[in-house]
Structures are given as C-alpha cells and as structure tokens.
C-alpha cells in the first residue's frame, strides 16, 4: 500500500493545465467585452418577467417571495433573498448583455438581454 509512486508535475502536465487556464481566461475576457443590455429577463420557476433597465427602483414578484431586485444605472442586482448561501446577492450588479445572476435555492435566474435580439422593440428610445 505504501509503494505508491508519485511526482508533482511534469512539463507536459503543466502545459495542459496552462492551456486549460488560458482558454478559460480568454472566454472570461471575451465575455466581459460585450455591450450593455437593455432588459433584464427574470425567471421565477415557470413564470418570466421582463424589466427595462432604464427604470430604476426596487422590484418584487409574487412568485419569488422575499426576493428584492434593484435596478440602478442600467444595472440590476438581487438586493436581498431569503436563501442560505447568498451567492445571488454577492454577485452584485450586472448590466452587460448575456450576464446573469442565478439563485439556485430560490430557483431564480436573471439574464441581461439586448432588445435588438428581442421583439419588444417598442421600448427603444431613438438616440
């Protein structure tokens, strides 16, 4: 049982790990370079709500009891939530297209969309 042989890392292993890390970091950088979104799509279980990021304020929904959303400076965050680990609250404000907040215990997802990709173009102000 104690005849197990081991080493720390060979050159090839370090190269593989570095490549995986580089790929992940590249995806991170590419993702943070997207445009600002215009809407927040909030899914609470089966129901979907859409909020315009132009409207600042605090929002609550019947389907998400005790969860408070807040929009400020075209960004949205989950201000408070009754869940245990508060990962959703700690995510903070998001506003870039494609970003999202997920609260697993409360089954809530918030996704930022750009209205160019939506059909609800009536809300867009010119300029």
């Amino acid at each position: 049982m104690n005849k197990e042989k081991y080493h720390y890392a060979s050159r090839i292993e370090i190269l593989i790990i570095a490549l995986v890390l580089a790929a992940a970091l590249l995806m991170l950088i590419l993702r943070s370079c997207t445009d600002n979104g215009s809407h927040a799509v909030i899914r609470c279980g089966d129901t979907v709500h859409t909020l315009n990021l132009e409207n600042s304020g605090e929002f609550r929904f019947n389907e998400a009891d005790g969860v408070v959303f807040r929009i400020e400076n075209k960004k949205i965050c989950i201000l408070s939530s009754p869940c245990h680990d508060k990962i959703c609250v700690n995510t903070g404000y998001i506003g870039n297209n494609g970003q999202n907040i997920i609260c697993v215990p409360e089954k809530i997802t918030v996704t930022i969309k750009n209205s160019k990709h939506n059909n609800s173009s009536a809300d867009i102000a010119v300029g």
Partner: protein
Amino acid sequence: MKKTQYIAKLGILLALASALQFLESLIPIPLPLGVKPGISSIVIMYILIFMGFRAALTTAVLKSVFVFATRGASAFFMSVSGGILSVAVMEICLLAYRRNSGSTGLLMLSVSGGVFHNIGQLAAASIVAGSFYTISYLPVLVTAGVVSGAFTGTVLRIILPRLKKRADALTKGVIIKDEET
C-alpha cells in the same frame, strides 16, 4: 488492511474532511459564486490514492450528507454531484497514470478533480434552477477549479512524504501480517 482498521481509518478521515469543509465555510472569501479552495479534497485525494476508489466515493457522498444536515437539500445535490464527478474523473486519471508510467502526477490529479468538481456543481445547479444560462459561469468555475486544484495538489505534495513517514513508523511490525490482504 483489517476490516475494522479500514473502517476506523475511513471514519477518522471522513470526520477530518467534514471538519475541514466546515471550517472553510466559516472563512469569508470575497470571491463570486462562493468559490472555495476546497481543502477537504486533500483528504479525498489521499483516500483515493491509498485506500481506493470505493473508499473515496463513499467519503465524498457521506461528506455531502454532512452538507445536507448543515445547509439543506439544494446544497446537498450540488455537493454530491460535484463530489461524485470529481472522484470519478480523478480515478480515471489515476488509472491512466498507473497503466502508463506508474507514477501519479499530483498536480494534474488535483486540478482535474477541482475543475470537474465545479463542472458537476454547475450541472446540478442548472438542473435545480431549471435553466441552462448557468453555462455562462463555466469560464469562472474552470479558472477557479484550476487555481484551487493547484493549491490542494501543492499541499498534498508537501504533506504526502511526511504522512508516509508517520504511517510507516506507526504500522511497523503490524504491516508484515497485513501483506496477504
């Protein structure tokens, strides 16, 4: 190893892993998504290398039961899927090493374990939240898995020779009898 000895050792290691995980959760780390270094995976890797796949899988699942008791059902589901996937991938990694070179690369082992632990948790989170937007967390979680895996692998590299020395000293004389099993 005798059965009672095996059970006692695994019990102690399980307690150690659970305690480390709990201690870790007490330290507030200002990272998004609740990313943690995963100190308890050092114990899991030790079990996997020296006591085998079944022992490691059992410990990982029982450790998740401890999570269920302290943090609830969805945390349990995420913990158990991350734990099972990471132990399975590390076992595949370990088997490949034993077949090819006979020497295990600890850094590679722990990094693959760390990355696939996070991927397993992400998959569970997607199922619980009923949404596949969670996939956008993948780059963050892979990065975190590599970093935490590098950390735990380095710690394992430092403590393994010392543990081996202690274990050899403790079991000297007893070990000759146990050779047959």
